[in-house]
């Protein structure tokens, strides 16, 4: 048979289930399931034996076969003086019977019994996965006599990693090697699940074609998935010959319906296995699968329990505290242990709290943004740089990341990091190397010599238990966060209510106090006007005091009302040029006290501030009026207005050479109705600076005061720069006051 011209890239497309031929160490009959009429047969039946074989089958339990079920041994059948071991199975359309010459059993014990008697107890004692697989490799080799027996496991990417090996001298060792995923194409992997045993007794065999009774029937009509004799891919045979292997046998290790790995045996010479041994091999594979499964389950359960314990500790720690997610990093050992990480970070919008080794803040934020953008609750990667290019910069601390997102609305994430582990992988052949094209034909895998690859940008992988723990922590945190949010909302509602009550109170008080003040002032005036002539000098003086007191109380009430209103009125912010504002106020103050000689020094260039013009004027007027008031005793009075320009914002500073104050009282200055001087020294309600502070803070700015007793005081404030893109300014921004005429 001419080997077909194949392109390896089409490996995945090769119709290996329906090769239309079998291996020559057996014979096949294909029957119509109902009538048992011959549909097709292998070409290696001697003349005249077809009918005999068909006849022999009639005496067996064929009708009980279920379509798709594993082959059933029909025992030994005699066909024309020859004894065959016969196995049969059904596909949807056909019934397949496979005949292999029965060999006399070696010894007095079927191989399968020794498995149960000797191997199983040893297997149960094995403590680790390595011990398990090593035992299985040795047992398999003993059972089959193959020259080399490997046990390997597939990783997530499909690469095979050799876990255990038992080999005769003269066989290459593959211990610790990896076989690239491309060595086993997709449909072959699928077939390993359906048909868990495969023997290629002689890689140099010539396939025996199947002949059909009806010429219209093609190879594609005969599904040999379950067949033991199925002819294998010519590519695979070439692969074997390249590898110097003339016989191979494999048993699938299937766990939870997935192909976990393979037991794979090779021999330099052709090697045939009798039915009994084959059954024992399949059995061994199943025993090993069960043991690995239970071992992995135990490990996973133990790990889960431990991690759940940690999650509980973390959450209880968090619920006890009154703080938010950032408290997670207050207990670093728990957080890091939970994900066996070397660093962890809590990201809340633009804030980052971290513990252990983490990338710098900007990098954490960038990564968090990227992960948040993916929109999954949980993200994990043990090769972050491959998915997120900027991670190459910090792979030494975070080549792997596990992240949970606490909120879909806000950027609230928790991230764990693992550093890069530079791994050297021994490949059995370069998995990336294009298959060498020699002599015009494309060959599979000419080279099996070891090829070492240094793998960078990867961390240790996150186990499913670790990811599970992160998911659990996420659930718990969402619970905590939600509860906290509810509490906050309740507090906010209560605050709002109290605030409203307070506003209503101050409104009512101010409003209702105004009337009696007015009445006092009014009646005093009336008395003075109507009875003035009959009153003594002293009575006039008393009436004067009553009037002044009433007027002052009236001012106080007005100031209180203003103060309360300042907290409520909406800000109508725009860019305000402070130079004309200050100049105007200076003129106004000069007019009010024409007798005073004040030396005003106002910076030529005052900044433009983004503020509510009316409120800003109230604030600046208060500062200037204060400076005038408290420097009254000086001659000359000196008042300086300076521009403040800084990163946090721009503002003004007003300095006077007045009575000053002691710095220890600085905190009292801005309080409502706080005074540092006796009332008769300086008039005023004591609410002016409180108003200044309230106005500045409502604009998001800050106020300050500096004073030296008997030397003077300086009051200043800055307002934040206007947010970019929020330009609702009326008129032109003017930072340079000199332009102002």
């Amino acid at each position, binding site marked *: 048979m001419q080997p077909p011209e194949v392109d390896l890239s089409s490996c995945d497309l090769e119709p290996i289930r329906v090769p239309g031929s079998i291996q020559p160490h057996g014979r096949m009959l294909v029957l119509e399931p109902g009538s048992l009429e011959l549909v097709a047969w292998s070409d290696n039946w001697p003349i005249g034996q077809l009918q005999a074989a068909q006849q022999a089958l009639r005496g067996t339990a064929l009708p009980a076969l279920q379509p798709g079920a594993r082959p059933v041994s029909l025992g030994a059948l005699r066909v024309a003086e020859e004894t065959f071991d016969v196995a049969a199975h059904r596909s949807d359309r056909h019934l397949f019977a496979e005949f292999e010459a029965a060999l006399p059993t070696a010894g007095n014990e079927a191989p399968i019994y020794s498995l149960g008697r000797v191997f199983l107890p040893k297997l149960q004692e094995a403590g680790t996965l390595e011990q398990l697989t090593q035992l299985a490799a040795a047992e398999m080799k003993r059972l089959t006599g193959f020259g080399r027996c490997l046990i390997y496991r597939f990783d997530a990417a499909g690469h095979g990693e050799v876990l255990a090996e038992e080999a005769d001298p003269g066989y290459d060792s593959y211990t610790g090697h990896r076989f690239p995923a491309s060595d086993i194409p997709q449909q072959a992997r699928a077939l390993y699940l359906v048909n868990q045993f495969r023997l290629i007794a002689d890689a140099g065999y010539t396939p025996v074609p199947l002949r059909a009774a009806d010429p219209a029937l093609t190879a594609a009509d005969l599904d040999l998935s379950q067949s033991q004799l199925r002819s294998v891919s010519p590519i695979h045979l070439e692969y074997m010959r390249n590898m110097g292997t003339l016989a191979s046998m494999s048993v699938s290790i299937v766990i939870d319906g997935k192909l976990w790995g393979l037991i794979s045996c090779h021999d330099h010479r052709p090697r045939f296995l009798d039915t009994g041994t084959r059954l024992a091999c399949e059995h061994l594979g199943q025993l090993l699968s069960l043991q690995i499964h239970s071992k992995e389950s135990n490990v996973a359960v133990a790990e889960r329990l431990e991690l759940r314990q940690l999650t509980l500790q973390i959450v209880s720690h968090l619920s006890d505290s009154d703080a938010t997610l950032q408290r997670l990093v207050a207990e670093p050992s728990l957080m890091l242990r939970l994900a066996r990480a070397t660093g962890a970070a809590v990201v809340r919008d633009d804030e980052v709290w971290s513990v252990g080794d983490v990338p710098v803040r900007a990098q954490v934020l960038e990564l968090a943004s990227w992960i948040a953008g993916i929109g999954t609750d949980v993200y994990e990667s043990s090769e972050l740089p491959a998915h997120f290019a900027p991670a190459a910069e910090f792979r030494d601390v975070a080549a792997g990341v596990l992240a949970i997102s606490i909120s879909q609305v806000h950027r609230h994430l928790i991230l764990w990091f693992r550093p890069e582990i530079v791994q050297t992988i021994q490949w059995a052949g370069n998995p990336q190397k294009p298959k060498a094209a020699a002599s015009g034909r494309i060959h599979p895998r000419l080279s099996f010599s070891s090829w070492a690859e240094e793998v960078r940008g990867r961390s240790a992988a996150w186990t499913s238990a670790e990811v599970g723990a992160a998911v659990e922590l996420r659930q718990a945190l969402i619970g905590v966060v939600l509860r906290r949010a509810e509490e906050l909302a309740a507090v906010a509602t209560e605050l709002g209510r109290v605030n409203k009550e307070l506003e209503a109170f101050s*409104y009512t008080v101010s*409003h*209702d106090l*105004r*009337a009696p*003040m*007015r*009445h006092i*002032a*009014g*009646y*005093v*005036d*009336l008395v003075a006007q109507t009875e003035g002539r009959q009153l003594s000098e002293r009575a006039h003086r008393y009436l004067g005091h009553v009037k002044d007191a*009433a*007027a002052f109380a*009236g001012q106080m009430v*007005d100031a209180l*009302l203003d103060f309360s*209103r300042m907290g409520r*009125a909406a800000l109508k912010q725009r860019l305000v040029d402070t130079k004309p504002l200050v100049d105007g106020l200076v003129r106004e103050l000069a007019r009010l006290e024409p007798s005073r000689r004040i030396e005003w020094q106002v910076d030529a260039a005052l900044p433009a501030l983004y503020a509510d013009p009316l409120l800003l004027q109230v604030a600046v007027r208060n500062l200037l009026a204060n400076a005038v008031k408290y420097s009254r005793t000086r001659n000359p009075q000196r008042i300086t207005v300076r521009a403040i320009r800084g990163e946090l914002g721009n503002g003004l500073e007003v300095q006077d050479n007045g009575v000053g104050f002691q710095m220890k009282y600085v905190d009292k200055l801005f309080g409502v109705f706080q005074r540092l001087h006796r009332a008769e020294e300086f008039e005023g309600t004591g609410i002016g600076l409180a108003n200044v502070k309230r106005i500045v803070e409502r604009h998001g700015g800050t106020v300050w005061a500096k004073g030296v007793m008997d030397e003077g005081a300086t009051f200043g404030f800055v307002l934040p720069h206007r947010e970019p893109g929020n330009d609702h300014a009326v008129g032109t921004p003017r930072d340079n006051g000199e332009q102002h005429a």
Partner: protein
Amino acid sequence: MLKPILLVEDDKRDLELTLIALERSQLANDVIVLRDGAMALDYLRREGEYAERAEGNPAVILLDLKLPKVTGLEVLQAVRADAGLRSIPVVMLTSSQEESDVLRSYEFGVNAYVVKPVAFDQFVSAIAELGIFWAVLNEPPPGSLKATRRNE
């Protein structure tokens, strides 16, 4: 005969001071004093106690904002909702400088809003100005005009 000025004020001191102020402004109009909003509405609608009063609307209503039973704002609303009363000028007199009160008063169609000054002389002049403007100088809307002007 001049149309009267209707003064609605519950605080007796404010009332006395307002009357003194009106007196000093030397307006010749009668001043009808009512002490709450409900009475004011009865008077204006000629209902209840005032069912028998002579026809004719006041020249102006000086209305305190805070009144028992029916507040000044409610009286204002009722006046503006009544076709027969709608054209009477209403001046809100109040102690409140609250923006919301001012806004609502204007929303309901007040003609003027006066915050009572604390100082008595200012109070007197404010009331005098109001009286002169609304009771004497203000031209009532056409149609509501009756031959009751001072110079007739």
